């Protein structure tokens, strides 16, 4: 949500002319009507909340207890822990797989391609469940492994695109200077490729952060799990809606912060002379399946 999008840059649209005084008055009227409609909707939701007695003291009292605050913090800590492991490991796996896909040896390339395509086509949750149920792994490693396999495969493609986006002359020049294959990759191509793809890489980490919540489904004691524990407590009159109202802003806030960071990096890169020319795609949705 940039200011650019909010104020909708009137100059660059193909859809309508810059409104004149009459159109402006009309738009102002539409604006007032639609704002009233949205406010009415919000008021109705608020009424429903009060009507179903979501704001009674009993439902909000648990959040004043230290034990429960600690439980929530612990859940949040566990979420961040899973995120940290998953992002580091998927960056590493992504690097390995990208190297494989760019290899000059055909079997290596095929193997890496097969791996990447398979794990991108599978739902992450199926992988996590498979590791958790079939291989009988603990919840945290199962969650991290599932996230790593999926995000690593996606990141491999991101890295590969980044490296392919580096001007061909760079590679040729490096070879002409007598550098070896590994040197060309590590000193010339990878640094530029990663820099070009940095916003996309960060966006993919947002996906990983969002997906840590899948840990809830394999009984990993993360943030949502802590919320569920509190929500199903009869002593506090099942404070489900209050829990959702507390947890969602924190979750969404964390992801938005990371998304904004990605947008910020992208905007900075666009202004930078070194990477100006490279246009990067969104990390999610991706899934380029075989045959595409």
């Amino acid at each position, binding site marked *: 949500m940039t200011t650019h999008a909010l104020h*909708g840059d009137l100059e660059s649209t*193909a859809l309508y002319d810059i409104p004149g005084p009459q159109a402006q008055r009309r*738009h102002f009227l539409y604006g007032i009507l639609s704002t009233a409609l949205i406010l009415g909707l919000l008021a109705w939701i608020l009424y429903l*909340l009060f009507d179903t007695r979501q704001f009674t003291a009993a439902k909000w009292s648990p959040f004043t207890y230290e034990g429960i605050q600690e439980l929530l913090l612990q859940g949040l800590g566990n979420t961040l822990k899973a995120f940290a492991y998953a992002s580091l490991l998927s960056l590493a796996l992504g690097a390995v797989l990208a190297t494989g896909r760019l290899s000059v040896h055909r079997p290596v390339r095929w193997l890496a391609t097969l791996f990447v395509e398979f794990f991108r086509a599978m739902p992450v949750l*199926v992988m996590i*469940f498979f590791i958790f149920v079939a291989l009988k792994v603990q919840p945290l490693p199962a969650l991290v492994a599932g996230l790593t396999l999926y995000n690593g495969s996606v990141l491999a493609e991101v890295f590969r695109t980044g490296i392919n986006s580096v001007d061909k002359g760079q590679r040729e020049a490096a070879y002409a200077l007598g550098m070896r294959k590994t040197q060309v990759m590590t000193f010339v191509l990878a640094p530029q490729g990663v820099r070009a793809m940095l916003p996309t890489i960060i966006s993919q980490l947002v996906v990983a952060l969002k997906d840590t919540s899948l840990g809830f489904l394999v009984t990993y004691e993360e943030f949502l799990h802590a919320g569920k524990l509190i929500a199903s407590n009869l002593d506090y009159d099942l404070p*489900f809606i209050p829990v959702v109202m507390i947890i969602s802003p924190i979750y969404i806030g964390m992801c938005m912060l990371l998304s904004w960071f990605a947008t910020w990096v992208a905007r900075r890169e666009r202004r930078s002379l070194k990477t100006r020319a490279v246009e990067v795609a969104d990390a999610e*949705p991706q*899934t380029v399946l075989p045959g595409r």
Partner: protein
Amino acid sequence: MDVLTENFSLYGKGFLGTVELTVYASLLALFLGFLMAAFRVAPVGSFRVFGTVWVAVLRNTPLTLLFFAVLLGLPRFGLVLPFKVFAVLALGCYTSAFICEALRSGINTVPKGQGEAARSLGMSFTQTLGDVVLPQAFRSVIPPVGSTLIALAKNSAIAGAFSVTELLGTYKTLNELGYSIIWTFIWIAVGYLIITLTISALFNVLEKRYGVAR
């Protein structure tokens, strides 16, 4: 191997459940995504704000949290609907944010001069949009919309974990019946592959027929 042949009806039910969920949620996502994209390019400020907030919030919401809030939260609100409807609602709203972004970037790929030319020919707003801009925008958004719908099909697995009849959910029953877990999962994986590859193939055909060669 026997897992599939002996429990074909169970697998079939789960498979059809996933397909059903995917189809309904896709329709909802396409409708809402289109609406939000229209909001985001509208000349009226409040529409733009609404569309922007919708996309920003839903894109950054973990889908599990959304399912948690919708499937378990809305009933506390006094709204009781079948689980499947809730699942379609959650999946559809979530995916609509991504569809909206795909459509919006599609509209942005149409050169500004096209709209200006249409207007200078005396075309009205609806004509400009319907006859000039959208047909071109649609053609360039076929691949990203396809990927988004594939992601939707994969995300429907979460509904299964929240006890909606769905492909992944079948593992629970088969596990209790004592079948080989590995084979159970292999057939589930095959089921998802069939669905995602079908969507992929469908969009490949669409792209070949309608896509723009740039």
